[in-house]
C-alpha cells in the first residue's frame, strides 16, 4: 500500500485519525523502507526540537517586560508582578489577565476564563470568584481556592474586597452590580502550605497599596461585613 510523504509525516506528527494511523502502522510493518523513512523523520524532528529545548529556561530580559510597565493612565489600575520582575510593574487593568498569562503562564489565574471576563475595557469577576466576592466572609473557608482577606468601605458608599485566588491576590470593587477587578498581582507567598491567608502581611504590597487608595475607612469587622453583604454591598 502506498503511503505518501504527507501521510507519513502527519503520522509522525500525530495528526492522523485512528483509522488512518492504523493503515500507516500496517504499511510500516510490511515495508522496512517506509519504517526507515519514518525513523529519519522522527530523528530529525527530535534533533531540531532538542536544539531549542533549553530556550524556555532562560530568564526574560527586563526590556521585554517594558511594554507591561507603562504608567497608569486614564481609569487605570495597579497591577504588580513582583515575582516576574523583582519590582512592581504597573499596567492597565484591561491587560491584567493577559499579562498574567504572559508572565506566569497558563497554569495561573490567566487561564482561568471562568473567573474573569472582560467588560468595558476592564475586567470583572465571574463564576466562583464572583460568588465568593458576593457571599464569602473575610477569613472564612480556610484552605479554599478563593479567600477573602478583607472588606473595605469606599467613598460614595460602595465596598471593595481583597481576595486571594491560587497564586494571585487582587482587589475587587463593587460597581454597577459587578465586581470590577481593580488590581491583580502574583503573590510571592501564595504557596504557603497552610492555605490559611487572611493576614494583610501575606498580601502583595501592590494590592495593599491599591486597597489603601480606595478605602474610605477601616476594614469592616465581621458584623459590619455581614450587614454589607445582606445589603448586597450597596
Amino acid at each position: 500500500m502506498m503511503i505518501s510523504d504527507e501521510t507519513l509525516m502527519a503520522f509522525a506528527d500525530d495528526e492522523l485519525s485512528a483509522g488512518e494511523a492504523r493503515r500507516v502502522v500496517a504499511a510500516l510493518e510490511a515495508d522496512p523502507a517506509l519504517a526507515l523513512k519514518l525513523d529519519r523523520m522522527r530523528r530529525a524532528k527530535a534533533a531540531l526540537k532538542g536544539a531549542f529545548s533549553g530556550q524556555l529556561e532562560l530568564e526574560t530580559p527586563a526590556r521585554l517586560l517594558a511594554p507591561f510597565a507603562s504608567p497608569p493612565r486614564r481609569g487605570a489600575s495597579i497591577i504588580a508582578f513582583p515575582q516576574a520582575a523583582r519590582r512592581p510593574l504597573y499596567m492597565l487593568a484591561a491587560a491584567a489577565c493577559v499579562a498574567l498569562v504572559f508572565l506566569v503562564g497558563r497554569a495561573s489565574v490567566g487561564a482561568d476564563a471562568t473567573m474573569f471576563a472582560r467588560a468595558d475595557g476592564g475586567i470583572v469577576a465571574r463564576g466562583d470568584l464572583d460568588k465568593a466576592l458576593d457571599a464569602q466572609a473575610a477569613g472564612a473557608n480556610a484552605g479554599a481556592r478563593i479567600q477573602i482577606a478583607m472588606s473595605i468601605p469606599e467613598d460614595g458608599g460602595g465596598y471593595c474586597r481583597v481576595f486571594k485566588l491560587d497564586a494571585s491576590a487582587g482587589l475587587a470593587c463593587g460597581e454597577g452590580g459587578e465586581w470590577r477587578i481593580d488590581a491583580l498581582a502574583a503573590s510571592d507567598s501564595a504557596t504557603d502550605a497552610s492555605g490559611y491567608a487572611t493576614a494583610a502581611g501575606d498580601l502583595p504590597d501592590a494590592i495593599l497599596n491599591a486597597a489603601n487608595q480606595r478605602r474610605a475607612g477601616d476594614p469592616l469587622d465581621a458584623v459590619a461585613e455581614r450587614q454589607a453583604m445582606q445589603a448586597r454591598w450597596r
Partner: protein
Amino acid sequence: MGLIPRLRRFALAMTGSRADGDDLVQDTLERALLRLDQWRPDTRLDAWVFRIAKNLWIDQIRSKRARERVVVSDPDADAAGLDGRAAMDAALTLSKALQVLATLPEEQRIVITLVQIEGFTYREAAEIIGIPEGTVTSRLVRARAAIEAQVLGEDRT
C-alpha cells in the same frame, strides 16, 4: 510555561538571531497590548500573539528586501558557514539548528518552527499563518526533507 519564553524561542528560530528575535518579541508584545481588545478570550492567546509576531517579521523581511534591491546583495554570504551535505551529529546544537533553519525559505521556516518546535497542530499553524491546512502540509514536507538531509545526511536507501 509563560508565553514570553515561548515567544522568544519562536522569534529566535524565525529570525535566526537572539538580538533580532528579542527585538521582534518586544515589538510583538507592544502591539499585542495595544490591540488587546481585538483578542477574543475564547481563542488561544498564544496563537494570537504568535500570529502578530509572524506578521511583524514578514513585514520586516519585505521592507528589508525592498532596501536590498537598491543595495547590491551577496547571495553567497547568506549560505556561508554551512555545508549542506555534511552529515551532522543527530544531536544538534542551537547554532547548527539556526543555520539549518536559515537555509529554508521563510514560509517553510515559519511552518516547521510552529509545528516541530512549538508543537502547534497543522490546523493551528494554518490559522496562525493564515493559509489552508493543505499548504501547511506541503510546506512541511519540503522543509522536513531539507532539514533531514542536512541533519542526518542524504538518505541513501
